[in-house]
């Protein structure tokens, strides 16, 4: 066999070996453990920090607001639905301030007129005409509207 063909053959074998080596090295260890995906992916996802801590987590410090809310029309709403994920706030309340959604548009997200949303579930209000001069929270307490 001429030299160049020998070398070509060697090169070909080398490429295949390289591919197999890369495949071996780069395929994640837990791949195929349960199916055609990384088995570890499940643990990894489970290990993500939970960012929404739930209403109960607020009671220890904001008990008045919690009670207030639970007695009003907004009793079904979650605190974090309006204030955003609170996982950092519960540990460092002074450092990690939560968002205070005080704009008219914000309340409108649930209360504006929307044909697709049943009137029974959420009372609808024409945001444009309903006391347009002030913020909603001037007259309605967001925690007990």
């Amino acid at each position: 066999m001429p030299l160049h063909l020998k070398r070509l053959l060697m090169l070909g074998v080398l490429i295949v070996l390289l591919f197999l080596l890369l495949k071996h090295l780069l395929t994640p260890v837990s791949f195929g453990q349960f199916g055609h995906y990384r088995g570890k992916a499940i643990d990894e996802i489970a290990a993500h920090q939970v960012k929404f801590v739930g209403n109960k987590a607020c009671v220890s410090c904001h008990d008045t607001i919690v009670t207030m809310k639970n007695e009003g029309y907004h009793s079904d709403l979650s605190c974090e639905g309006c204030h955003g994920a609170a996982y950092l706030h519960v540990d460092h309340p002074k450092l990690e301030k939560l968002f205070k959604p005080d704009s008219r548009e914000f309340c409108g997200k649930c209360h504006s007129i929307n044909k697709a949303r049943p009137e029974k579930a959420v009372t609808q209000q024409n945001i444009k005409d309903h006391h347009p001069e002030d913020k909603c929270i001037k007259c309605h307490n967001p925690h007990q509207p």
Partner: protein
Amino acid sequence: MNPEFEHLYQALSKVDGFIYPNEIELSWSVLIVLYPFITGLVAGAFILASLERVFNVKSLKPTYVIALLTAFSFMLVATMPLVFHLGQPFRAWEIMITPHLTSAMAIFGFVYLWYLMVVLLLEIWFDYRVDLVIWSKTATGFKRIVYKALSLGSDDISPKSVKLDDKLGYIVTVIGIPSAFLLHGYVGFIFGSIKANPWWSTVMMPIIFLFSAMVSGIALVMVLFIVINYLRKQKIDMLCLDTIAKYLFYIIIIDFTMESLDQIHRFYEAEESFEIISLLISGHLNFTLLIMQIGVGMMLPLGTLGVLQFYKPAAHIRKAIYFVVGILVLIGIFFMRWNVVIGGQLFSKSFLGFTSFKLSLIGSEGFLMASIWLVVPFFILTFLLWLFPPWKKTPVDH
């Protein structure tokens, strides 16, 4: 208009009739149109090259190497539209190391690699080896290093090994023909196998893709052949050009027949999807299908080439006509891909309504992005022609 509904109105203005919410926006856009277009050019150009090699059409010889290098340049870019459409270039290779046999796309990766590494590269290498050895002795600087590396450090150009090379190159070409068919047939299969979509789901799809691939590849090489000779201020080999045009003519006829057969079949069967498809053709695809694909890209070239088979005007006029015809055919095949990819997403799976599509200029799926991937192969080709000029090769007789 109520501003709260603005977004909804905007979305609805694109829609006619009834359509499911997830069908309003097209998920496959112009980049996915490019993917079969570019792979088609590869397969077509390669098949033209093998006509000379395997079927011994001697007059096509001047285009042999150009066709191979064209196929190679486009092959290098073929997967780029896909990678950029998916937007995960750093994960794209994972499809190769954890292949899934039921994933049509993963298998495409292997078909692609086989074709690129085993067929194209090897064939070009065998064809150039003697020249690489010779050039590695005469050239200087960067070129010399490249030639030296590519000749694998062997300078064996004895008649015996040259003959062996030729034989091996021939074998590679013979393997290459079914591989080229496989490559592009496979792209057709990816669409044809989607049974939920009546515009795509037909067993004819791979065959139609294949023949349209040949049409576009041959047209591309023809145009490039004219342009290269023009730029090099060489007198063009008219016999060769006429032969390419003749083959182009034949293949267009076959392609046209296949596509018509597919449509006739659809018309005659008139399944429940027929109504929406005829509305699609007469409506949204009116311009791109009837005018661009069939009229400009098929009938016009077919008529012109047909006439030229009997009546031959002067060489420079013929050359101009071939050039224009080549461009028209390329445009036509581009629109054929467009009509398949975009057309298949315009109608609702409920068969009761349409959405519409407007190509944006910028953005990751825009016109400019697509143009980049269409232009890059020409730069690669220019570079290859500079590095491995076919006109400086030592003539060999296959």
